C-alpha cells in the first residue's frame, strides 16, 4: 500500500488517546476509534459515522485507516487457504487459514523473511527483510475472508516472533483487550526457537501460550540444524521454563519436526524425556515437508507413530500434527519466495 501517512490500524488504545490529544480531540474519541478499527468491518476513516465530519477530516489529513487486503489466495483441497499480503515496503508475507471441525486457526507471520537461518526452513532462504508492525500482524487476521469466525491464532508463519517482540506483544494486546478483539489469550500461541531474554519478557508480559521449536535435544545436532543453539542452547531455554508454572491454563509445548534417521531414534526419545523431565508440557510432532536444497527427509508413518508412542510411554503427551494444505505450497515461506522470485 502506497502511503506516507501514519496508519490508525495497529495502534493501541493508549496510542489512540495520544492521537486524540495531539489533534485536540476529546479523550473518548480514542474509544470510538478502537470500536471502528477493531470491532467493525469498515475500511476507511470516512465510514466512521459517529465522528463529526470535521473530526474525520482532521484524522484523514494525518492518517490512513491502515488495513490491507491480501493480494493472492490459494485454496487447498482440504479447505486450507494461504493468503499472500504485500507489505508497505513491497515485500511479501504469508498467512495460512486452517479449518478443522469447529475451529478456524490462522497462522500469522511476524517478520518478512527471517534471520535465524534454520536448515529446514524455507523462510530462512529469503534472509531477513524487515519487521512487521503490530498493524501488519493483526491485519493478517482482520483482512481475510474468515475474519469474523477465527477461533485460534498461532504465530508460526514467517519470521521469529521473539526477534520482533515489541510488535508481537502489541499485536497480542490488540487481539486480547476488551477495546480490541477481546479474544482469550488462551486461544493464541506464539512459537519461538527460544531467544531466552525475549521469552522471559513474553512470559511476564503476555498470557498467551508458548511453543518452542526443539527438533533435537542434542547440542551438536541442534547447532547444525538451528544456529540459534550457539547463542541460546535448548538446555538454557528449558531451564528458564522450569521457573514457570504451566500446570494451569497456560501451556507450553515443544515443536519437533521429524527428520528421517536424524532425530527419530530411541536415543532421542530418552534424551527428550530427560530434558523435559518435570515440565508439564506436550510435544507436537510435525512431518517435514521438503524444501529445496535441504538434505533432510521425513520418516515414514510407521516411524512417526512409533516415535510418538515411545514419548507417550515416557509420560510426555505427544501428538502428530496433521499435515494441511500440501497442494498449495504448505511449508511456510514457499509461496512468498515464489512471489519474490517472480518480482525479480
Amino acid at each position: 500500500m502506497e502511503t506516507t501517512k501514519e496508519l490508525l490500524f495497529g495502534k493501541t488504545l493508549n496510542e489512540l488517546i495520544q492521537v486524540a490529544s495531539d489533534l485536540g480531540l476529546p479523550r473518548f474519541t480514542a474509544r470510538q476509534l478502537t470500536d471502528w478499527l477493531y470491532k467493525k468491518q469498515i475500511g476507511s476513516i470516512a465510514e466512521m459515522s459517529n465522528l463529526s465530519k470535521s473530526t474525520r477530516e482532521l484524522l484523514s489529513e494525518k492518517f490512513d485507516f491502515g488495513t490491507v487486503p491480501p493480494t493472492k489466495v490459494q485454496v487447498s483441497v482440504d479447505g486450507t487457504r494461504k493468503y499472500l499480503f504485500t507489505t508497505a515496503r513491497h515485500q511479501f508475507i504469508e498467512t495460512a487459514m486452517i479449518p478443522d471441525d469447529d475451529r478456524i486457526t490462522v497462522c500469522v507471520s511476524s517478520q518478512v523473511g527471517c534471520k535465524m537461518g534454520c536448515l529446514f526452513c524455507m523462510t530462512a532462504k529469503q534472509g531477513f527483510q524487515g519487521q512487521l508492525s503490530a498493524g501488519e500482524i493483526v491485519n493478517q487476521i482482520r483482512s481475510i475472508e474468515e475474519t469474523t469466525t477465527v477461533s485460534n491464532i498461532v504465530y508460526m508463519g514467517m519470521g521469529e516472533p521473539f526477534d520482533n517482540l515489541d510488535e508481537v506483544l502489541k499485536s497480542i494486546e490488540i487481539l486480547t483487550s476488551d477495546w480490541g478483539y477481546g479474544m482469550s489469550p488462551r486461544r493464541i500461541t506464539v512459537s519461538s526457537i527460544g531467544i531466552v531474554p525475549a521469552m522471559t519478557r513474553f512470559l511476564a508480559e503476555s498470557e498467551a501460550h508458548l511453543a518452542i521449536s526443539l527438533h533435537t535435544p542434542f547440542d551438536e545436532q541442534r547447532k547444525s540444524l538451528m544456529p540459534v543453539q550457539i547463542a541460546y542452547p535448548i538446555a538454557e531455554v528449558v531451564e528458564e521454563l522450569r521457573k514457570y508454572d504451566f500446570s494451569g491454563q497456560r501451556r507450553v509445548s515443544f515443536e519437533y519436526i521429524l527428520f528421517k534417521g536424524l532425530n527419530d531414534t530411541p536415543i532421542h526419545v530418552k534424551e527428550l524425556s530427560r530434558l523435559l523431565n518435570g515440565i508439564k508440557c506436550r510435544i507436537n510432532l510435525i512431518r517435514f515437508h521438503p524444501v529445496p536444497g535441504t538434505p533432510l527427509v521425513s520418516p515414514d508413518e510407521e516411524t512417526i507413530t512409533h516415535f510418538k508412542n515411545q514419548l507417550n510411554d515416557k509420560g510426555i503427551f505427544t501428538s502428530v500434527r496433521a499435515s494441511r494444505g500440501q497442494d498449495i505450497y504448505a511449508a511456510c515461506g514457499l509461496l512468498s519466495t515464489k512471489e519474490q522470485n517472480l518480482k525479480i
Partner: protein
Amino acid sequence: MQSTDKNKTELKPVRITGNEEISPNVFMVSWKREGDFNPGQVVKITADKQEPPRIYSICSGNEEADISVLFNVKPGGVLTPRLASMKAGDEIYVSQPYGNFGCDDSLATWISTGTGIAPFYSMIRSGRFKNKKLIHGVSHANQFYFEDFLSKTLGENYIRCCSRENNGDHFPGRVTEYLLGLPELPKADKYYLCGQALMVVEVRDLLIQKGVPYHHIYAEIFF
C-alpha cells in the same frame, strides 16, 4: 558451556578503553578483560540498561588485556549510533562471554562476511588457527579489517573476496562465487560460517550442493 549459569548473561557496567573506526562505519569497541573466555564466544552489550542488549562476537584474543567487538553503525539503530559516539571512559553494559562457537584443531574452513570475521579473528589472535583456512567477503577493499595481520599470520590460507572492487589482490566477487568456482571442497573438513542470515543460508546450501555433509557445517548468525 555452562548454559544454565544465569550470571553469564547478566549485564554489568564497564568503562570503554577504546573505540576505533577501523573502516567506514565499522567500529571496534574495547573494555578491560576481567576473566577467561573461549574464542568464538559472544557478549551482550547495551549503552542503556532500559534498552534490550544486542549480541556481538568477541574479536580479541583470549589473553589480550581488553575484550573487543566489532560493530556496524546502523543508521536509525538504537544502539550502534550511540555506541559509535562513545569514547574511552564512557560506560556501557556488557554480559560475561558465553556461547560455544569454538572449534578444535581439525581441518576446517572459516567463512565470513563483513564483521562476521570477528569470532575467527578472535581464534587467530588466541593462537587457535592450526589447520584453518579463512575466507572473508566484503563489498569494498577497505573493509578487509586486519588484512596485514591476517596475511602475515595465515599466508595463503587467508582468502579475500571483494564483490564491488577488483584491484587484483583478491578474488573479485562474492564468497559464494568463490566457492562455486572451486573444483572440489574437502568433504571431511568442517565449515564454520558467520555473517548475515542470507549469506549463511546461501553458503550452507552451496556447501551441501557441493557434497559437504550438513552436519559438518556450523553457523553463527547476526541477531
